[in-house]
């Protein structure tokens, strides 16, 4: 009898912890989604917690009148450019660190992350000066380059781990059976590393998508979504936006990233029927 009670208690505690963890993440999202679509009267009515009437007006206004739709497009372009540039630069570096032993390898591995010791503002202010001279200020490529500087260390470290986990013998077998080193990298190592590379791409995408400071400093007319939202909400045209606009903005910020991760994750798990780290 005592054992059964103990078991029941344990189980209850277990589910309680899980429930709390899930609620911790979900409640703010649900609240933002609900209040982003509430009518003004429902939102300000103190007797109503779960609103009765809904409208897409605020979301619509932010998207099309206040320029968030442009921001989304810019963000997608910047994130894509960031992925492309940081992969072009990061994959060869990651591969070399993983597969070749050369003097200074550990030193390089360590110093690659050292850039991240500096706070972003320290990096952003000199950058804007440089960008104005190079005519990169207020361009999407400029933001993408700045984001690449932030994501590249992680891309190098993540890809070196991924390539390190692909057995050397797979590549050697391809070389024995008729391919060059480059050929075996493209035909064997790259496809095997693909799930991991996709994860690295997702990570890069999210970092770029969320980054607001550098994007705000470096652009004026071509803003990424977070920078655009920030300028709307902080009220560059005098006074902060009403709360329901903020919730609507939170919805706009969250949804695309959530959808992206949701679909990418499904794809990752099923690839080759195996899980590479």
């Amino acid at each position, binding site marked *: 009898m005592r054992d059964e009670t103990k078991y029941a208690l344990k189980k209850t505690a277990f589910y309680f912890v899980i429930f709390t963890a899930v609620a911790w993440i979900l409640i703010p999202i649900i609240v933002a989604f609900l209040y982003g679509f509430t009518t003004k009267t429902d939102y300000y009515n103190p007797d109503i917690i779960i609103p009765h009437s809904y409208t897409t007006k605020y979301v619509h206004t932010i998207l099309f009148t206040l320029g968030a739709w442009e921001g989304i497009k810019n963000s997608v372009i910047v994130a894509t450019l960031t992925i492309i540039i940081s992969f072009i630069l990061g994959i060869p570096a990651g591969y070399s660190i993983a597969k070749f032993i050369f003097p200074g390898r550990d030193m390089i591995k360590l110093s690659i992350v050292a850039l991240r010791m500096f706070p972003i503002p320290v990096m952003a202010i000199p950058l804007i000066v440089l960008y104005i001279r190079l005519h990169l200020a207020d361009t999407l490529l400029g933001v993408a380059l700045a984001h690449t500087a932030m994501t590249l260390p992680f891309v190098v470290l993540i890809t070196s781990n991924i390539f390190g986990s692909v057995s050397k013998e797979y590549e050697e077998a391809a070389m*024995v*059976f*008729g391919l060059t080193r480059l050929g075996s990298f493209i035909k064997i190592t790259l496809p095997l590393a693909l799930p991991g590379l996709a994860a690295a791409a997702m990570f890069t995408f999210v970092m770029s998508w969320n980054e607001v400071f550098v994007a705000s400093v470096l652009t004026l007319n071509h803003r990424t979504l977070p920078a655009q939202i920030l300028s709307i909400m902080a009220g560059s045209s005098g006074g902060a936006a009403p709360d329901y606009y903020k919730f609507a903005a939170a919805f706009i910020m969250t949804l695309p990233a959530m959808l992206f991760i949701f679909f990418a994750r499904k794809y990752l798990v099923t690839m080759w*029927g195996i899980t590479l780290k």
Partner: protein
Amino acid sequence: MVEVKLDRITKRFGNFEAVKELTLDIKDGEFLVLLGPSGCGKTTTLRMIAGLETPTEGRIYFGDRDVTYLPPKDRNISMVFQSYAVWPHMKVYDNIAFPLKVKKYPENEIKERVKWAAELLQIEELLDRYPAQLSGGQRQRVAVARAIVVEPDVLLMDEPLSNLDAKLRVAMRAEIKKLQTKLKVTTIYVTHDQVEAMTMGDRIAVMNQGRLLQVGPPTEVYLKPNSLFVATFIGAPEMNIVDATVVENDGLFLEGDGFKIPLPDDFREILESYIGKDVLLGVRPEHMTVKGVSTLEHVTRTAEIEGIVDFIEALGTDTIVHAKVGGNIIKIKLPGHIPLPVGEKIKIEIDLDNIHVFDRDTEKAII
């Protein structure tokens, strides 16, 4: 099909010499086993033949062709890796067809050859699966099928059986040997397992610490080892090695702790210069017997020493008697099940045509 010549090849990794001045000729169609403990340089040698490593010094020839600096893809070789290296993102069919596709065989010939290789290794029904869905033994078969599908000049195998369980290993041993006999492809097989080497090789090349110690047919390496290392590395249970001195005292003797073995006159010529010196005496467990219990067959001359039974290992088919001779423990292998009581005094008979004497300093075989 080609003969392989290694001409004084040396491989250094920094200050470490992995392979030292190795010279070896492998005949066309031969099954050569490179045998040695881990770290002896056998895998490095194989990788140099494959082109995955380049020798620091020396040359490698396939027939008359100098391939020393040729990349692996231009050598027309195949290799079976220790981890199989069956690519997980390709189905079994595509794995086996890969070497053919790279070499741009016509589509219908690819199909035919893959089918032929798959039938040979009995994996036809697996062609549509991914490697993750196969067992270790099946993956091994895929790796072998992929290696033979192109009819390579040289087939290289790097401990291909070491990841299989014991039963499967014995079965695959016979199968690979049969396959090689059928295909007559020059094969170089690396292993640390002396049983594999003995059962599969046309010749065995024993390596230790980067040096080639002895090359020869299995029976020759077994019965006439040229050094202490070869003698003790091959054979299970291991050859008995005891300290002895060559003594001249009204005839020639090998004398040690607890024994004195009289030697026939024909040993005199070889041992003349060792009279009065310390040597190492080696006798394999099956070249001795316990008098009155079992007899040695096909033996012309024997010697007798005394011992006390210390321990009995009953293996079912054989019995290993551990006997105390002076301060030495000597193992004697007797056929069948022989329950000798521990502590009993026994007379040990030694086959004098199968004793080995090694120089104490150089560890080279004198007899």
